[in-house]
């Protein structure tokens, strides 16, 4: 008897969302099959995208081999962002580290002005994250949204603790929200439900928290897998959003990545690759070499099916 491989067909679709404006605006999501399941009925219209991370101040604690590609621009966020674009990033990820009350507690106005300058200096989209301090982010992120009105940034992390004030500013000023919850499918859904009381679901991206290989990555992996299965197979509307994997930060603080360049590249590259397999739609990296490395590994052409 001839073997016939089973072909699955699902009715759930991940929302296709655009970040940024103009020619280089980026489409995320849109798939109605599981990651790499090209043999099934359906498509993955938008291949995984790669953002390079920069900070609003010279980063502390980065090993020399990570600073090296940016050493001439690292003290200037605008030049640093432009360099990321030159190096082939699909987006720039700006972390407003200096706003953290435990770092410099720099004011919201300053952060917002810098964000606008960075966004205007590049053609690719900008993702901007606050420090993660819920109350400070509740001041900084609405200001960023306001000052960058209409630029369609992806703004995060939006937390359960500040989603109302941050989410409304995102709504009012034409941006997208990156909704972050601590590695838990139920909490992730709850935050999306609450945001959707006022923000359209196609303006939300899911940040489920991404751990590094060897440091709990399997939790992030199974969570992303679950989000995709629920969205594509079960058609749970509250998990049908693209996923962002903010992984560079986690990888480059590991002992292994700190030790030398080769280990660092592999640590970040393997984590990124694994999370693409789990369903991540956009990956935040720190080392530019990994864009090429990971893209080659996943084989760009198959994604254009």
């Amino acid at each position, binding site marked *: 008897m001839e073997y016939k491989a089973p072909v699955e067909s699902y009715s759930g679709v991940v929302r296709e969302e655009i970040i940024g404006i103009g020619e280089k605006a980026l489409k995320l999501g849109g798939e109605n099959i599981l990651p790499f399941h090209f043999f099934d009925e359906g498509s993955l219209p938008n291949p995984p995208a790669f953002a390079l991370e920069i900070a609003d101040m010279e980063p502390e604690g980065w090993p020399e081999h990570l600073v090296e590609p940016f050493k001439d621009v690292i003290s200037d966020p605008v030049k640093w962002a432009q360099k990321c674009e030159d190096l082939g990033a699909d987006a720039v990820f700006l972390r407003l580290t200096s706003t953290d009350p435990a770092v410099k507690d720099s004011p919201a106005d300053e952060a917002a002005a810098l964000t606008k300058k960075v966004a205007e200096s590049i053609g690719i989209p900008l993702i901007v994250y606050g420090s993660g301090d819920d109350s400070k982010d509740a001041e900084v992120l609405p200001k960023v949204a306001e000052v960058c009105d209409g630029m369609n940034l992806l703004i995060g992390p939006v937390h359960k603790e500040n989603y109302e004030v941050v989410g409304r500013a995102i709504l009012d000023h034409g941006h997208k929200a990156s909704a972050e919850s601590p590695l*838990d*499918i*139920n*909490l*992730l*859904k*709850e935050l999306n*439900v*609450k945001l*959707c*009381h006022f923000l359209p679901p196609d303006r939300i991206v899911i940040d489920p928290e991404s751990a590094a290989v060897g440091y709990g990555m399997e939790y992030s992996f199974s969570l992303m897998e*679950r989000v995709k299965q*629920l969205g594509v197979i*079960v058609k*749970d*509307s*509250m*998990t049908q959003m693209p996923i962002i994997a903010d992984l560079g930060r986690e990888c480059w603080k590991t002992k292994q990545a700190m030790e030398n360049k080769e280990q660092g590249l592999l640590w970040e590259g393997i984590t990124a690759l694994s999370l693409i397999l789990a369903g991540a739609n956009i990956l935040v990296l720190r080392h530019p070499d990994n864009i090429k490395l990971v893209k080659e590994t996943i084989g760009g052409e198959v994604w254009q099916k």
Partner: protein
Amino acid sequence: MIIIGESIHVIARAVNDAIKARDAKVIQDLARLQGEAGADYIDLNVGFLRKDTEETMQWIVNTAQAATDLPLSLDTMNPVATEAGLKICKKRPLINSASGKTDSKEQMLPLAKKYDCDVVISVINDRGMPAEGDSKLDSIMDTVAYANALGIPNDRIWADPIVLPVSTAGEGQKNAMATYEFIQMLPEALPDIKSVVGLSNISNGVPVELRPLLNRTYQMMLQRYGLYSSIVDVLDKDMMSMITGGMQNMVDLIYRTMDGEDIDLSPLSQEEINYVKTAKVLMGETLYSDAWLES
């Protein structure tokens, strides 16, 4: 449906304080109120009782018996405490509970034989908590065989598949479904063995005002699958009404959701919609979140 009243529970602050202060009134009021509300048994959940083990257990048993004629369910993992209580129970009590763990089989089960009382056996064993319906059943069959060999007949045994909080990262919803399977398979696999659950654990960790809705809905679902007994909040009036055949419109909606019907929510009241949404969560049809009623 045999109803076991859960309100005398050491996790409740007032109960804990009353036990420490030997304040009989708090315990007696709760025993009496639960009896009036329709309980068949009064559960005495006293914790492990590391200190003053026997004296404390005997105090609470005597205190409860002074206020109610109902039989008691002695709820502790400590066999010394259990035996102290068994010695003075006037009505045939329920040991709550033994399990398939070696310690429990060797120390708790013989008490059921010695005092000729009923005993709850949970599916937990030395390997942990079986996750699937059939592995839960396998586990209980092993422990029942052990109990039978001690001379405990099947009609003295109540089997507990263990209810987990529905809010625990998806596992709770899977376990809720494994529990339905267990309850349906039990009568054929082990005739004369009764099923029992600690119902309210389904809503542990859920915002407190939403807990009764989950508890009631889950009770109705388990009852439909043939559940024999449940440890519940008998002071929840709607719960007791539903158990005894009231609120039929809500119960019908739960049943129709269980049957997979795609119910049109538009003509329904908010309360009715809430029961439909809750049943969908407990059938594993929609992913749980604390905001399950809001979407």
